[in-house]
C-alpha cells in the first residue's frame, strides 16, 4: 500500500516552507513526521499533489522557558516532549501524555504540532493543550497570529488554520493549580483512545467525546461550586456529542467519560 503520486518538496526554512505552500495552494500539504498524514494518504483519505517536507526544520524543534510560559516548537517529537526535563517539571501532564501517544516508533517520528493540526478527535494531545489553556502560534503569508487552543479545533481533521498557514509554536502558561492526570481507555496499547480525559487542577478536557476535544464545562462548574470529585465527574458527559463506532456506542462513551474523569480527578488531587 503506497500513497497516490505526489511531488515531494523539501523546505530548508520556515520562509521557504511558506513560499512553497503559497505556490502549491490547496493541492499542497505540509509533511512533518508523517505519522498521521502518510497513513491517510495510503488510504486515499488525503490525496495532496504536493508534499512540502518541513521535517528538517530544526528551528521548530525546542522546549524553552519564555516570559511566564513554556514554548514548545511545533516540530518537537512526542519522544522529545516526553523526555524534556523542563516539561517534566513544569508541565508533567503534557510530558506524560506525549509518552502515551502510539508506541515508541511513532513517538520517534510524530510531532506535537502535527498531531494538533491533524485534529483527530481521538488524538490525545489536542485535549491536553486544551486543558492547559495553550496558545498556538501560526505563521502565514500575511504574518504571524496567535490562536487560543479553545478556538483552534473546528471538527474532524479540521482546524482554523488557513491553507498555507504553518503552526510553529505552542505556548503554555504555568498551570494555576498543580495536580494532573491523563486517563486513556483503549482496547490495545497502541489504539486511539475510545475515550480519554486530561485533568489539570480543576480543569478537565475530554478526548473523543465529540468532533473536537472538549472542555468538560459541567464538571468544572461543579468543582467550582464545591462539589466533590466523584459528584462532579457525574456531569462528565453533559454537553458532549460522542461518535458511535465499532468500539463504542454513545452510552458506553458517556459512561467511560464519567469513569475516566472520576479517576482523573482523584489522581490529580493525589498529586496536588
Amino acid at each position, binding site marked *: 500500500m*503506497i500513497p497516490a*503520486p505526489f511531488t*515531494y518538496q523539501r523546505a530548508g526554512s520556515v520562509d521557504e516552507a511558506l513560499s512553497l505552500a503559497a505556490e502549491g495552494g490547496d493541492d499542497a500539504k505540509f*509533511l512533518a513526521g508523517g*505519522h498521521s498524514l502518510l497513513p491517510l494518504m495510503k488510504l486515499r483519505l488525503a490525496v495532496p499533489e504536493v508534499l512540502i*517536507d518541513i521535517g528538517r526544520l530544526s528551528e521548530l524543534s525546542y522546549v524553552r522557558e519564555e516570559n511566564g510560559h513554556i514554548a514548545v516548537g511545533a516540530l518537537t517529537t512526542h519522544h522529545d516532549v516526553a523526555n524534556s526535563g523542563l516539561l517534566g517539571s513544569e508541565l508533567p501532564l503534557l510530558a506524560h501524555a506525549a509518552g502515551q501517544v502510539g508506541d515508541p516508533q511513532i513517538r*520517534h*517520528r510524530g510531532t506535537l504540532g502535527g498531531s494538533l493540526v491533524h485534529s483527530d478527535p481521538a488524538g490525545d494531545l489536542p485535549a491536553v493543550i486544551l486543558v492547559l489553556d495553550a496558545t498556538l502560534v501560526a505563521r502565514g503569508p500575511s504574518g504571524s497570529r496567535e490562536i487560543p487552543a479553545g478556538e483552534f479545533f473546528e471538527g474532524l481533521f479540521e482546524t482554523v488554520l488557513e491553507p498555507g498557514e504553518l503552526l510553529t509554536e505552542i505556548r503554555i502558561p504555568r498551570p494555576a493549580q498543580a495536580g494532573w492526570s491523563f486517563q486513556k481507555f483503549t482496547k490495545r496499547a497502541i489504539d486511539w483512545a475510545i475515550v480519554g480525559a486530561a485533568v489539570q487542577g480543576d480543569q478537565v478536557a475530554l478526548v473523543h467525546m465529540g468532533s473536537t476535544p472538549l472542555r468538560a464545562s459541567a464538571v468544572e462548574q461543579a468543582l467550582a461550586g464545591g462539589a466533590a470529585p466523584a459528584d462532579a465527574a457525574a456531569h462528565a458527559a453533559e454537553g458532549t456529542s460522542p461518535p458511535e463506532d465499532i468500539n463504542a456506542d454513545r452510552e458506553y462513551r458517556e459512561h467511560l467519560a464519567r469513569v475516566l474523569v472520576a479517576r482523573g480527578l482523584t489522581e490529580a488531587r493525589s498529586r496536588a
Partner: protein
Amino acid sequence: MKVSMTVNGAAVDAEVPDRTLLVHFLRDVAGLTATNVGCDTTSCGACTVLLDGQSVKSCTVLAAQADGHQVTTVEGLANGDGEMHPVQRAFHAEHGLQCGFCTPGMVMATVSLLAENPRPTEEEVRTGLEGNLCRCTGYHNIVRAVLAAAEGGDI
C-alpha cells in the same frame, strides 16, 4: 527524485518515485529483504528499522525523508566477522521467536529500547515493545530475550 542514504554503513543511491516508502527502498532498491512488511498501517512493527539510531516503522516513512540519513536494518547488526549482535544472541538463546516474521522488527525495536533504557524492568520491556506485534503471541520468550540482552550488559 534522487535519494542517497547510508544503509548499514554503505552508501545507497537511487532515483526513485517521490512516493517510495523507506521499507520498499530497503527491500527493492538496497536488496535488504529481512525487513518485513506486515500490516502496512504503522501498527505491527515488523518493518521497524533504526533511522539515525532511533526505531521507526519504515512503512510510514518516505525514502525521501531518510535522504542523507543513516539507516540500520537487522542485516547490519552482526559485526564484520559475522558474529551476531548481543540482542540477536539473546533472541537465539531464549528462543525469542516462533515463526520469525516479527523478529527483525522486534530485534530492531529492542536495540533502540536498550539504547534509551539499558536496564529496563520487565514492565518497561513490555511497554517498550508495545509497537511490535507477534502473530504467534510468543511474547514471553521475547521479553525474556530482551531482559537477557540487558542483563548481558554488552549492548
